């Protein structure tokens, strides 16, 4: 297999790219933001995604999905990134689906059709501090009745206020910081004792702080095994991190292309500014950085799809590299647009804001570089 898209994958891209440019554009993001929309994404678009089959992209064919892999999910996410589309696709159709693959047949039968049909949104309630740290889970789940009682708080739950279901990591044994002793629960958002406080983030998406005050769930709300939630959580995180990386590549490429167009139009000193070697070299360097990010993301996608044991390490490398390169793309983008880059009317600033949020989600550059170092024994 070559490290490039197959014909089928290229076809998927050819159908998703124009669809999102038309229906999930930056214009839509602006209108959601400017109308102070409380949902954080366009429900119509979410249904259209379902009609195209995209929401079931990772769901097995036997369970009503397309049964495709991370490369294909990444193709959709790159276009989401390029268009700055507001969508629960990453959390629901990618990260949550990978966790739910470890769920009981009943739970899968309940949620996969709803996800594929665009009827459900799933929030990921994993973080308790301001920096990504899934092992630091302290939210308590105590045995109670036929199930568990959950008490604690989560933050940075994107779309959490409108989600139908929340995937909540909780501690059933051990101490915060340990991977063992975590259990992953599926908790309906309307459960008694669960409150969600929503806020708009810098990139105009909506995210919630969630409080669980003795929320009672049945034993069958557990995904995977009690105390061994790290396994489904790892599947969720691999998919989420890599999906965010693909989206970052879309954001960075979108910002870069926009900037290169500007370099070819804007005139100063009687010349198109793209003629200045100082800018040409920075442009070429940036292009190299984005190409590197694109390559490692694709490599990690193929590895996860092949079940390669080094997959998790490459996911970290991919997230770190995509974060680094895209951050450069948006910074260079604003700078090379001059004063225009600072205006709200111009889109480049929106790329910068989305980059910031995507850099943070599922662990930033520093988290993943550190993780890579630890995996290599230092």
């Amino acid at each position, binding site marked *: 297999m070559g490290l490039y898209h197959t014909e089928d994958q290229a076809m998927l891209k050819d159908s998703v790219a124009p669809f999102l440019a038309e229906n999930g554009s930056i214009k839509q993001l602006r209108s959601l933001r400017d109308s102070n929309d409380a949902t954080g994404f366009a429900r119509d678009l979410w249904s259209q995604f379902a009609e195209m089959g995209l929401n079931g992209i990772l769901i097995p064919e036997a369970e009503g999905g397309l049964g495709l892999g991370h490369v294909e999910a990444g193709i959709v996410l790159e276009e989401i990134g390029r268009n700055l589309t507001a969508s629960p696709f990453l959390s629901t159709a990618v990260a949550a689906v990978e966790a739910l693959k470890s769920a009981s047949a009943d739970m899968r039968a309940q949620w996969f059709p709803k996800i594929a049909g665009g009827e459900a949104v799933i929030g990921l309630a994993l973080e308790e501090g301001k920096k990504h740290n899934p092992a630091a889970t302290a939210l308590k789940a105590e045995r109670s009745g036929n199930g568990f009682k959950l008490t604690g708080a989560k933050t940075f739950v994107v779309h959490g206020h409108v989600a139908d279901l929340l995937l909540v990591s909780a501690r059933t044994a051990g101490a915060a910081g340990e991977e063992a002793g975590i259990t992953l629960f599926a908790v309906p958002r309307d459960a008694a004792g669960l409150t969600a406080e929503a806020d708009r983030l810098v990139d105009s998406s909506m995210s919630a702080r969630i409080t669980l005050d003795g929320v009672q769930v049945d034993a069958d709300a557990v995904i995977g095994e009690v105390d061994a939630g790290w396994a489904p959580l790892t599947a969720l995180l691999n998919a989420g991190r890599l999906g965010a990386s693909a989206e970052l590549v879309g954001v960075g490429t979108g910002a870069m292309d926009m900037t290169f167009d500007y370099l070819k139009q804007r005139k100063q000193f009687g010349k198109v500014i793209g003629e200045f070697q100082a800018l040409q070299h920075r442009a070429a360097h940036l292009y190299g950085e984005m190409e590197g990010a694109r390559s490692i993301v*694709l490599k990690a996608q193929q590895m996860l799809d092949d079940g390669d044991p080094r997959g998790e390490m490459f996911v970290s490398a991919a997230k770190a590299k995509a974060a680094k390169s895209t951050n450069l793309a948006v910074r260079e983008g604003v700078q090379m647009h001059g004063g225009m880059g600072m205006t709200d009317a111009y889109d480049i600033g929106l790329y910068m804001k989305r980059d910031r949020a995507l850099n943070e989600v599922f662990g930033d550059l520093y988290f993943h570089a550190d993780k890579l170092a630890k995996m290599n*024994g*230092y």
Partner: protein
Amino acid sequence: MTDLDTFRKEARSWLEANCPPEMRQPVKGDDDVCWGGRNWVFSSPAQKQWLDVMAAKGWTVPDWPVAYGGGGLSPEQTKALRQEMAKLNCRSPLNSFGIWMLGPALLKFGTEEQKLHYLPQIARGEIRWCQGYSEPGSGSDLVSLQTFGEDKGDHWVVNGQKIWTSYADKADWIFCLVRTNKEDKYQGISFLLFDMTTPGVTTKPILLISGASPFCETFFDNVAVPKHQIVGELNRGWDVAKYLLGHEREMISGMGGDGGMASLGSFYADVLNDNPVLRAEMAMFEVENLAFRAHSERFMDEWKTGRAHPAYSNLMKYVGTELNKKRHEIVMAAGGSDALEWESARTNGGARPRAWLRTKANSIEGGTSEVMLNVVSKRILEMPGA
């Protein structure tokens, strides 16, 4: 099992049976690298045996046609073979400017006669080639070169000077850019091949900051070159030269992957854990290294199947060489004062600082980083201006 799987399996067992154990040890010094040529002294019988069996199989140049001494393999098979060689830690049987640079140019621009004559010699490591491009006044601005070939009917008489000619003192033949028309800058250069023992050719080694002197000043004083030793058309040598540079840059870019995907930091865990800022630098380097490995794999896959932009090797050369310099900076920092020792036996004659200094040339040789960025911005990004 697919055909490729079958090939991979067969290649693996063939390599296991034919690659001498010594040729699966890591390369420690220059002697361990085989360059071939008339004057090559094999460092061990195993080195010779390895070259002979690989050449007989056509696997010194696996993707060249069989008729020219190659293995006739497809891009996928070539990749699989390289992967299997890497898994078994097989050394490269032959390093050669003939394989990396001249061969591809001959395959594209050579006559059938030239291909049948020169390519098998390259594949078998019989003739060692050097590259006569740069001149004292023509480095980045290569097309301004002045070495002149005067038309004498059935031959040219070449006069002039080249510089930075790697291994000119060890090479058997040279591929050389020679001006054959002074009126036309671009369409006045011809691509000539000639024997370094031709009367009038002299070389003078130049000492590098690393203490080695692998390159030379090369002088041509009335050197007679027969007319059939031109590659491509008269005065159209620049096309051949540029095509060859694409391959040279592809080859040099591969250096960024020194050490492959293996973790560099894992060798220095003790030092790194006591030096958190250095540890962080190393971690960032590891990110870049894995990204580069994937980038280079993707580039090779696209390049060999005609998907890559024709100027893409310029980008890879820039990224790969800058990364390799970074690698050696970190290695030096991790090595601390031990890495300053220049001569001791303990440090294998200062191998580390010498290698570090050598890498500084990576972003100069074959076209500088700045020139690579110029080419990328103009040819790939289509930025305006001259």
